[in-house]
């Protein structure tokens, strides 16, 4: 899971228990540029289907 985080301001008067660290998703395609020709693929078609992409360089798990 590729992500960034930040720490929002917490007021002493916030009504709910503050979440100190907020995160957001930054999947690998944001950094890839043009995908290189012949970039490595998953070894089996079954694994590629399971992950939703042929290429490890584009895979972003999420949970």
């Amino acid at each position, binding site marked *: 899971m590729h992500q960034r985080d930040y720490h929002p301001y917490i007021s002493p008067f916030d009504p709910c228990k503050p979440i100190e660290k907020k995160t957001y*998703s930054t*999947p690998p395609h944001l950094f*890839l540029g043009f*995908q290189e020709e012949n970039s490595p693929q998953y070894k089996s078609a079954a694994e590629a*289907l399971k992950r*939703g*992409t042929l290429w490890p360089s584009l*895979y*972003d798990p*999420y949970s």
Partner: protein
Amino acid sequence: MWYYEKKLQYPVRVRECNPTLAKYLIEQYGGADGELSAALRYLNQRYSIPDKVVGLLNDIGTEEFAHLEMIATMIYKLTKDATPEQLKEAGLGDHYVAHDHALFYHDAAGNPWTATYIQGKGDPIADIYEDIAAEEKARATYQWIINMSDDPELNDSLKFLREREIVHSQRFREAAQMLIDEKDKKRFF
């Protein structure tokens, strides 16, 4: 034209009867950033975009329909045996009085799908940038639905669909670059 393969792009398994989850999933069915919007947006834009990216819009638009029927299958399975009482408890009472157990193109809050969700501006850069934004919004929507769901088998299918949004975004970004780069110009590094 299209050939139809009588199977889903990725298997859909649902572990438990959970109509509330169907209420959330319908956001991806008839919502602004849902699969219907995506399919219709791309398949419409493809007519008035430079030749070299027509095929991309055609392929991705087609795949969005495959995603649409996965979402439809999930919603159907989650609600098909639910009683009116269960639907009411799940917040689907309003849906039931208008549609019984039928699916309908509206978002999680019940707003009917509208063509104003999509655009065909005729400007290739504007259209492709809209498509990139649409993929990122759909990716985020999948994340929020996964966060609301505790059905591991359904989440497996949702994670597949989320990953497809990432791949589509990547391809649209490459398409934008192809349209920006000067035609036939050799690139030296």
